[in-house]
């Protein structure tokens, strides 16, 4: 490591602290908000910490035990919506859908990418451009036709409809990234294998995919995260709470008159945990995959 002057160190740490504040302070505020009684959050002048923090909001989400402040009944009943209790289920739905999208991306994406990177076939350039350009269309514009297609195939309120749509939305990017990666692999390996009579399928399975595995996993996880956070199509296609994905539930909670801010903050915190868990492997595979070749300068 090069030696660094004190000034340089100060700049680096100053920058790091600013960045950490910008990125993480909102999350800290969300977590803080989730454990304080709402009356404190709403106080003016602000007295957030007048009462001790508690975990009752989380308890309600997972067990249904109603927090003390909500236990009044009758006309003065504090409103509470059991919709926040849909959060764990919504996380599950999101994970199911996003995992399937990831697998499809890994499978179909590497197939297509290898073909585009290494095999000449009729219509290659045109179809590659077509796949990439498909993402230029604003999603709002095609929401209704998408919906009609899904409905034609009986996919309203189904996992597979979401999986199909998210695959369509993520595959172009996956294909691009993996095409770039495969193209970066030494051609000599392919050629040597071909001389020995290997088919394209075998080269892909035995040589290209093992070599590209980190990038493939990275691209898959990238697709996972996009699928995990998509809102518009999930809003239209899921019609019952047992099928709704996390963004839809959180979106509905934010507009739900019965949901207090601390309950909303707790829901956001819970909903963010899977992302947090995934962040480490995504970083390992995606960013390293990028670094190790695919999009090198």
């Amino acid at each position: 490591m090069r030696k660094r002057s004190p000034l340089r160190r100060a700049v680096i740490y100053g920058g790091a602290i600013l960045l950490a504040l910008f990125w993480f302070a909102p999350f800290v505020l969300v977590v803080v908000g989730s454990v304080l009684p709402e009356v404190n959050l709403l106080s003016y002048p602000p007295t957030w910490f007048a009462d001790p923090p508690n975990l009752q909001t989380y308890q309600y989400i997972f067990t249904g035990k109603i927090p003390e402040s909500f236990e009044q009944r009758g006309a003065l009943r504090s409103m509470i919506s059991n919709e926040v209790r849909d959060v764990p289920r919504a996380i599950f739905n999101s994970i199911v859908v996003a995992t399937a999208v990831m697998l499809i991306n890994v499978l179909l994406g590497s197939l297509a990418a290898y073909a585009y990177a290494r095999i000449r076939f009729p219509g290659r350039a045109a179809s590659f451009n077509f796949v990439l350009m498909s993402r230029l269309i604003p999603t709002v514009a095609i929401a209704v036709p998408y919906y009609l297609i899904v409905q034609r195939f009986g996919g309203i309120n189904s996992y597979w409809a979401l999986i199909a749509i998210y695959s369509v939305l993520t595959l172009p990017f996956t294909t691009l990234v993996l095409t770039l990666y495969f193209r970066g692999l030494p051609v000599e390996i392919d050629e040597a294998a071909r001389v020995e009579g290997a088919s394209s399928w075998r080269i892909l399975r035995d040589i290209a995919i093992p070599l590209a595995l980190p990038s493939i996993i990275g691209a898959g996880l990238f697709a996972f995260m996009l699928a995990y956070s998509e809102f518009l199509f999930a809003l239209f296609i899921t019609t019952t709470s047992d099928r709704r994905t996390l963004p839809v539930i959180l979106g509905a909670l934010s507009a739900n008159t019965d949901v207090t801010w601390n309950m909303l903050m707790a829901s956001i915190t819970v909903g963010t945990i899977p992302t947090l868990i995934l962040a480490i492997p995504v970083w390992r595979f995606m960013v390293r995959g990028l670094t190790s070749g695919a999009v090198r300068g």
Partner: protein
Amino acid sequence: MGRDGKTARRRDGKTSRESEVVGRASSSLSPHHPMTPSPLRLEGALMAAPVLLLVAIFTIYPVGRAIYQSLRIESPIFPARFVGLKNYQDVIGGLFFKEAAITTLWFAAITVPILVVIGVLTALLLNESFVGNALLRVGMLLPWALPATVAALIWKWIFLDSWGALNAGLYATGLIDNYIPWLTTPSLARMAVIVVFIWTQLPLVAIFLLAALQAIPNELYDAAAIDGAGVAGRFWNVTFPGIRPMLVIVTLYETLMAFTNFDIVYALTQGGPGTATTMVTYFTWVESFKKLDFGKGSALAVLIAIASLALILVLVRAIPKGALVEERT
């Protein structure tokens, strides 16, 4: 660029992979032909078929339908008929279109340069070793991975006029005596939308630029240092050329994102106050689902798609030749 050039360029022997990645910009990202004369193989088409089929189903019909609708009055309330380009005229001459178009352009013009500059600085920072670097790298994926509506929701709680965290914090520390109406003052609301957009987009920009940075061989820096280059000299002679292709990609991508940004505005300001933060995409939604005018909604969508395409072509043309294809490993 054929194999010969590639082999010759792999001069430092540091990596076995070739560097030229993104095809010539002018051929709009079409795949390169690394193996010059090789036989046409049908299995290639077979391998690409599933992706192609899936994308085609969900592209050709929807786009065709959108274009068809954009030429008609399509509403459950008004009688359907062909009107040619009238929808386009109505949309462009409509009440809010001009303001929204200006706001959108202005939004992109401000956010994209900020993102690129801060993105470069962030990537440079993360490329240094310091305590907490790993935490910062991994943690920064969070803002990007959140649904945009949730990101907006989190920031809404911070900016909210009456009891937002920012006002509470500023008040508690005595910095202000009266709460500031962040979201209902036009200039502040615009700033809020920009901040949230940058918050969600900066991680991706930084990651991609960091990836590009890490691909620059240390030897180049060492050589520059031997030549006596200072910090600025090293940046302009080594770093900048190294990340230039990625800068181009990131700029294109973020321009597109800024152009089609919808969720954040929808959740944070609903386009207000007034029309201060109303973007063009928002009207696609309003025309179709709120005003039940699918013809005008489609016309708007087609316009946005054309504008995006045109913008990208202009940007691609504006890039100096060779910016995307590097002669270096």
